[in-house]
Every structure is written in C-alpha cells, then in structure tokens.
C-alpha cells in the first residue's frame, strides 16, 4: 500500500515537473519577443491582442503593425487637439500631422500588404519609416515637444516590430 502511495506521489511529481518545464519554455509570443530588444513591451502588446496566442510570426508582426496604426491615430488626435491648446506650435504641428498621416496612409498599408504577401522587406521599410516620421515630428518642437511620450512609444514599437519582421526575411 505504502509502495503504491509512493509511486503515485512520484508520478504526480514527475508530471508536475514536466508541466513546469513545458510552461517555462515559453509560448511562441515569449520565444519571439526574446529575440527583440524590448521583451516586456513586445509581450504586453502581443498578449493584449486575442489573436496573439495562436499567431505565427507573420501574424505577430501584423498585430504589432496594428498597434502602430492605433498609436498613429491616437497621436493624430492628440495633434489635432493641440492646435487649439498650443496655437504657437502650429508649424511643428503641421509637420507632425503630415508625418503621422504618412504612417497611417503609406507605411501601415505597405507593411500589411508586404507581410501578408510574403515580401517582408517592404514591411521592414514601412516599419522603419514609422519610427523615422515620429522622430522627425518630435524634432520640430526644438526640445519643447508635447508629444514626447507618444514619440517614444512609436520608436519603441517600431523597433520591436522591425525585429520581428526581420525574422520573416
């Protein structure tokens, strides 16, 4: 009897250890995000999307591009609101508006099409450009940008997305 009990306990322990080992190896999201420069950001963005848990690398890239699109829209709204609050910043805001519209109307569609169709290099170009446009917009405020936090987010997301897109090359 005691032997049986001991064997049952040992089996349970073995199963538990196996499960722990499997879980610690990480999901596809975690494994993918490990290869980017911002693991935490990458994981939180991908986990926040219901498609994340079942997506392949292309799918993960597309989720992040969707995040870029969302952040762009948010920033454009912020820019629009600033015209009234900070009218002295009009010139910089105009340039930012142009730059973020480029992300929305050129970079994002280009990246989505390229990744869906399996020519990821054009997706990489679009994603890199999103970061460039954000940086250029930021620079227009000569150090007094009301958008710094949004700029930094875009730069970080752009970097992480680029790293994942490069995995498709």
């Amino acid at each position: 009897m005691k032997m049986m009990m001991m064997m049952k306990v040992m089996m349970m322990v073995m199963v538990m250890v196996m499960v722990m080992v499997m879980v610690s190896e990480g999901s596809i999201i975690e494994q993918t995000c490990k290869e980017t420069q911002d693991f935490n950001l990458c994981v939180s963005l991908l986990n926040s999307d219901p498609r994340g848990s079942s997506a392949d690398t292309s799918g993960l890239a597309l989720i992040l591009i969707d995040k870029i699109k969302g952040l762009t829209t948010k920033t454009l709204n912020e820019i629009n609101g600033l015209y009234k609050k900070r009218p002295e910043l009009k010139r910089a805001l105009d340039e930012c508006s142009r730059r973020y519209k480029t992300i929305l109307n050129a970079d994002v569609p280009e990246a989505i099409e390229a990744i869906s169709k399996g020519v990821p290099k054009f997706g990489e170009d679009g994603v890199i450009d999103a970061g460039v446009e954000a940086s250029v917009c930021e620079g227009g405020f000569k150090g007094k940008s009301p958008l710094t936090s949004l700029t930094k987010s875009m730069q970080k997301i752009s970097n992480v997305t680029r790293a994942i897109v490069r995995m498709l090359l």
Partner: protein
Amino acid sequence: MASTEALLPVTSRQDPLSESRSDQIPETRRRRPIKVHLAVYSGLLLIALYVALIVTHDGSTAQHGAKDESSTESRASLAGVSEKSNDRVSRLSDDRKVEAFPWNNTMLSWQRTAFHFQPEKNWMNDPNGPLFYKGWYHFFYQYNPNAAVWGDIVWGHAVSKDLIHWLYLPIAMVPDQWYDANGVWTGSATFLDDGSIVMLYTGSTDKFVQVQNLAYPEDPSDPLLLKWAKFSGNPVLVPPPGIGAKDFRDPTTAWKTSTGKWRITIGSKINRTGISLIYDTTDFKTYEKHDTLLHQVPNTGMWECVDFYPVSKTQVNGLDTSVNGPGVKHVIKASMDDTRIDHYAIGTYYDSNGTWVPDNPSIDVGISTALRYDYGKFYASKTFYDQNKGRRILWGWIGESDSEAADVQKGWSSVQGIPRTVVLDTRTRKNLVQWPVEEIKSLRLSSKKFDMTIGPGTVVPVDVGSATQLDIEAEFEIKTEDLKLFFDDDSVEADKKFSCETSGGSTARGALGPFGFSVLADESLSEQTPVYFYVTKGKHSKLKTVFCTDTSRSTMANDVVKPIYGSFVPVLKGEKLTMRILVDHSIVEGFAQGGRTCITSRVYPTKAIYGATKLFLFNNAIDATVTASFKVWQMNSAFIHPYSPDDLGVPSRT
C-alpha cells in the same frame, strides 16, 4: 522611402554593421543643424545672389578654376569645412535642440532625374523582362499605379530605340487572374528558337502563394508588344515540397542545355541557406525539377532576383544566355533579402547535372565579402542579352534614401540605374566590369577640359556652369616622389582594415588621399557629395586603392539616410587612376578603373540645387600632390515621355 540602413537603433544579429553603429545612430538621426531656418533663408538668398554672379562673372571664374594650384586660402577653407562637420556631429547629440527639416516643393521637384528611367509618378521597384525586339528595347518594371510606396503591383512598360530615350507605354500586365491576384511580380523573358518571346513571372495568388506563370505577346507582329496574354494553364510552377509558399519567386531567363531542353533557375531558401532551384522544360508549360540545386550558400538567407549567365573569358562582347564552352565562365547573381545587397560570383557551370561551382568559395554568392555589382544603393538587378549589339546589359533598381513622407509629398519613388554593359574583366579575370551604355553619350552637350595639379589640402571650384546634369571622365596621378616616399616608408603600416564606411569619410586625411570630386555641392561646401580615391598601403607593401562616395554631408536634411559607400578597386601595374561620374539631380553614379568598382548614391541637397549646384575638385591628402586630367560634359535631358504616334520611326531624340 527610408531604407534599412540602420536609421534607428536595432539590435539584430544578422546586421552587425547596424550593431556597431547603433550607439551612433541616435546622434545621426538627430544630427540637425541648430539654425536650419536661418540656413534655409540664407541658402535661398545665396542661390539668388549666385545666379546673378554666374550671369555676370562667367569668364573670369573659369580662368581662375583652370589654373589654380594649391593656395593657403583653399587649405583653410578645407580645414574649416572639416571642422564644421565635426562640430555639427558633436553639437547635434541632443535631439531636442534640433528642428525637423521642412521640405518644400522647390527642393523636392529638383530631385527628379533628367536622364534616368522613372515613371511619371508613383512607386517603381524591380526591372522585369528586359529584351530587344523588332527594333525596340523593351523595359518592364514593378509599378504601383496608386501610391508612392510599394503595393498593388502591376507591370509597367516602356520602349526605347537606344536604352536612353524612353517612351511610356500602357501597363502591360495587371493582377486579373486568381494566380496573380495579389501581385504580378518579377519575371524574365526568353527568346525561343523561332524568335518568339515567352515571359515567366511570379504571381502572388489569391491565397498569397508565390507561383510561376507563363505569358506571351498577344500580337507578335506588334513591335511595341502592347498586349500580353497569360497562359490558360497557369500557374506552370508552384512551390515544391520543402519550399515555403512565400519563398519562391523571380524566375530567370531560360538557357538551352546540351540535350536541347530549356533550363531555368529560381531563388529560394531553406532555413537560413540561400538556394537556387533548377528546372528543365521543353515547352515552358511543364517542368522537371532537379533533385540537386544549381547552388546554395549557408547563412545567406532568401535569394531574390537570381540571375545566371555566361561571360567570355577573352572577348569583351556579351554572350547569349545559352552559350557554353571552354572559353566561358558563368556568373550567378542573387539579391540578398536580408541585407538588400546584390552579390555575384564567377564560377564554372556543369551542364550535365545543372550545378555551378564558384572559383573562390570564400567570396561565394551572398557572403558579406562577396563581390557586388555596386557598392551603393542598387538592388533587384537583372541582365539580358542584347542581340542587337551583342552586349549583356544590366538593369538595377535604385530606391530612395529619403523618408516616405517626402516620397508621398513629391509623388514618386525610385529610379533605374543607367543600363550598363557587363563583361568579365579580362585582365584580373576575378571580377566583372560594368560601364554605362555607349548610347548615353548622345546626351552629351558642351564640354570643358581641365588639367590641374593640386597640392595637399586643396579644394578647387570647377567652373562648368550648371552642375546638376554632368558626365565627368577623369584621370588622376599621384606625384611619383610622393608615392615613392610613402611606399618606402617602413613606418607606414599596411592598413588592412581600411574601408570607406569606417574611414571617417572624405574629411579623414591620409598620406595619399582622399582626392576626387565633390559633386552636388553648394558654394560654401555646406552640402557636398565627395566621390574619391583613397590610396593606402595594403598587404605585402603594395598600394591599395579604395573608391568611395561620401553622402554624410550631402544635405542639411536629417530625415534621409547618408551613408559612406565604397570598396577596394583593383589597380593594375601601369594603370592610372580613372573615374567616371554621372550626376543627374538626386542620383550620382561613380565608376572606378573603367567600371571595376561602381557606386550609386541617392542625394537630396536642400541648398545645392538648381543654379546653386557646384562642382569642386579636392585633394585632402596630407603628403601627396595630385594631377587631375578631366573632361566635364553638360548632359541633356532624355525627355522621357508617353509614346505617341509621332514617335514611330523616329530613331532617337537629340
């Protein structure tokens, strides 16, 4: 459109160059002059003043330029320029003090080229199916009819009698079938024995699978080949087992095997190994796949736009793709998806089993040190055999190095390089030699000849009038005594690591270089693009020559990529240093030693535009005096325009 050349800090194990520069990149990205507005306004004022100056003082400036030797004033200005640029780098480490660059339409519209092929508007990428037929050179290209970024791809079409004066034709192929619904992508033409044309191209299907399709001219009697028919049995090839559905594209021109079958190759990858699949066919409709590959190289990633062709070991003419024999070597070229670099290697083709072996495996296709057609911005290139003049001609896609916002604002993106002849370098036998097609000389207008001796640390204005459309051919010689002193000086060690990218650009002064031309420069040299030689000591105490283009100071704008490009160029005993430069607004193409090393760059000045563009000759060496003997031609526009019935029968426009 921003390129992948590390604009933002990215840690990528596949891109060591960006890693090493990642610390610098934030600085580079934020390298903005502090008083840009002032600079822009004073720049515009300068342009107006200079136009006035040019009109009134043309004669005297020319004299001065032609006879100038070294002068302390020039040396000071050179040193001043070097210091200024260093200052600019250190001062601009703080992003927040710097302003974005506002592109205006005057600056942007200047960027359009005058004699390079580009569509009237929107995005272009890979050259497709180039061929010569019934008196016309045909050029097809990946084109987006809807935007200035990649997408919605169709086959654009243009024709020319001379590879220079192009006429736009209607779009040749659109995604109207399930097997190319998501893209009519890159392909190549083959001439059958009866002279008819077959076109193989990649289609992206309605399910996003990459397949190969067959198309042919609807009306072979139409010299303009306006309409194309797609084979009803398409696709003729689908991704084979073991090959990814999205790793199968860009079929080559076919060549005849010794058994009379046609053979093609298609690039792909298996994990990180770049490969080239090989197929035989008799009718271009059904194919046998070889179990072996034409070639493969580990760790090179996906091979796009593979090209495969013979070159003569002894003659300087081109060869039809089917030629084989003892007097022939074969070239494999591939476009590396990972790095956006076109690499080629020379080797031996074994027709019996469809394999190819490189002459030098250490610089095999795709290895980072492998040879390149071009050390600058140049991708997705493709050759064709020009049976009209017995040449092999190379086309290359030259993308933008600016931001996509600028592309959208100016309404277009990308140009093609000037078509080049390609032959084996019969002297070194280890590399190809490329040269702009002879027909480009038909664009040459007036010219000026110069002979100048310039001492160390000199910049000399070269008065040629307008300096945005130029053809420059130059010969340089370093004074023998200076060479000998350098050569015999044992304290000067071999500079094994010297490269254009890491050398600090044209302001880093060595004993024997850099020296060359500064193109697309403004009067004050605040914007300039030096194209130059740098001679240094190589292994075994031999001299080593490097040819570079430095775009790091080409523009005040900071939303563009500004790399330093270039490479070692073989200089054989008894050869003088020669370079040719084509300047055409926002594109500069440099050719060293008759085309042994070529560099294409995209340049976007903000001040050095229109009448303010200048040309300078410089010698930034510390010890050497250099003699430069050169000729500069003004280049006419090619007046590329939509085809009209008036164009029929007109050989070329002059």
